[in-house]
């Protein structure tokens, strides 16, 4: 597999705290990799190690086939990044901040600044000082800076932070388009699990500095448990009816949950039994465990 990101035994310790423990990441080119973890799990430390901002205690990091470091060296002309909260020089305008980034990226074409301003809908703010921007627009400026040089790899830490719902959808579509049309690899951490769920083609879950699971979106789809949720006017009678028909059922918040594969594949049969038993269903739906539940289950959360 042609890898955009590869870490082997990546380990980092800050004093007594083991921030990363033998992390072996594999991100293929063109993938959208969702990197999940609780606060303090090691997401940002991993991202900083990928960008050569911290030195691994042990292990190695390769980005776009090139080793990262020593001395912060890496293929940075092909990598765009957004680390933690967005930041910009407050006394410079949005245009000036991007012009500064253009020069430091070594891009000769002056038009790229105007183009990225239009693409990220920053036109109305182009001449506004960055210090006066809202968090959402500052995040857009950070994304614009990350995308300015048309990178092959985007490393984004919480890219949806501070954006309003329309902005979240817009950025999601932009990232999806970049991956689909230009083959850009996207490595993104997020605490908005639904975002990752909708966008990522591959997901990694880090917990207490260890990469505890890595799976494809298809695998996640398959591994998610399904159940049939039934609501009836009298749940007690409906439950008795279903149990007598041989379905393993439980009641939770007035909803009957059936995990029987038979029921999931043939909900019409369940409906027929309930109607025949005199307790017709008011609602019948096949539900699937979402990424949030899967994540909480893995990390020992309570959901």
């Amino acid at each position: 597999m042609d890898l955009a990101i590869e870490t082997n035994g990546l380990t980092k310790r800050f004093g007594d705290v083991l921030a990363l423990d033998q992390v072996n990441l594999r991100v293929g080119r063109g993938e959208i990799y969702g990197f999940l973890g609780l606060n303090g799990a090691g997401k940002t430390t991993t991202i900083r190690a990928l960008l050569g901002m911290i030195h691994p205690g042990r292990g190695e990091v390769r980005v776009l086939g090139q080793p990262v470091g020593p001395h912060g060296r890496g293929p940075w002309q092909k990598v765009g990044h957004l680390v933690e909260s967005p930041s910009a020089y407050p006394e410079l305008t949005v245009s000036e901040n991007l012009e500064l980034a253009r020069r430091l990226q070594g891009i000769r074409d002056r038009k790229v600044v105007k183009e990225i301003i239009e693409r990220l809908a920053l036109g109305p703010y182009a001449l506004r000082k960055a210090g006066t921007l809202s968090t959402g627009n500052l995040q857009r400026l950070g994304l614009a800076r990350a995308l300015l040089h048309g990178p092959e790899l985007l490393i984004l830490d919480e890219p949806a932070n501070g954006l309003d719902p329309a902005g979240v959808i817009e950025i999601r579509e932009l990232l999806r388009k970049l991956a689909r049309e230009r083959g850009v690899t996207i490595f993104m951490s997020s605490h908005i699990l639904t975002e990752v769920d909708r966008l990522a083609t591959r997901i990694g879950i880090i917990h207490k500095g260890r990469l505890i699971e890595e799976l494809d979106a298809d695998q996640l789809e398959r591994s998610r448990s399904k159940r049939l949720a039934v609501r009836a006017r009298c749940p007690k009678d409906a439950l008795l009816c279903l149990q007598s028909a041989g379905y393993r059922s439980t009641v939770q918040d007035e909803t009957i949950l059936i995990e029987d594969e038979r029921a999931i594949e043939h909900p019409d049969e369940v409906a027929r039994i309930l109607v025949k038993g005199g307790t017709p269903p008011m609602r019948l739906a096949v539900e699937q465990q979402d990424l949030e539940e899967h994540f909480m289950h893995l990390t020992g959360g309570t959901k």
Partner: protein
Amino acid sequence: MTAFASALWAEGLKMIRSRVPLLCAVGFCMAPLAGGLFMIILKDPQAARSMGLISTKAQIMAGTADWPAFFNLLAQAVAAGGMILFAIITIWVFGREFSDRTLKELLALPTSREKIVGAKFIVIVLWSLAVTLLVFGLGLIVGTLVVIPGWSTDLARTAFLDMLGTAVLTIPLMTFVALLSSAGRGYLPPFGWTILTLVLANIAAIMGWGDWFPWAIPGLFSGAAGPRSAQLGPHSYLIVILTGLAGLAATFYWWRDADQAR
């Protein structure tokens, strides 16, 4: 445009757009204006006596109302004021990347960290020298306007070289301020360091071994503590150069190799 020219352009733009360097320059220009005021006071002893404290202060600071005294006053202002104002500008150039959380935008770029640090130092040197020239130029205008005796072209040339020399000896010491701004990740540690070195420089000068203490040397060079030749030797200049190089190397090393985990 080369990567280094780009880094220099970026640092220049940040400097021009910010109010901090401009305010520092305005603050530094107070020295020739205050010197001019002292000269006016000293020129008219009758009026000076009626002005009480400020007259006494003027006599202590300048002594007589003439060009040699005025230039001496400016050189001392560059020595003492330069140590603080050059430090403020250094603290701003390096420390603002931490307080504005913009450092992370400078670490993974095709323009290397060494070039960015180099550009920062060049901007600091250029700004410090420009402000010194501004103080001297303003001094010439103020001195001419208040009409004081003792002018000669030779005196002006010597005074200019003394002032420039004082600034040139102060600038290398700023490398440690840059290091403290970086390693201290903000404004307070380097500011504390600047105050500490000023206090120690005074103590070193009073104890009589200021010629061995780098932070006391610009003050001694300016003539603030008596004739320069009697106190300073080649070792003094060498110490300033070595101190500057040590700070420079440590700052480069820190930017290149330290973990940037915050």
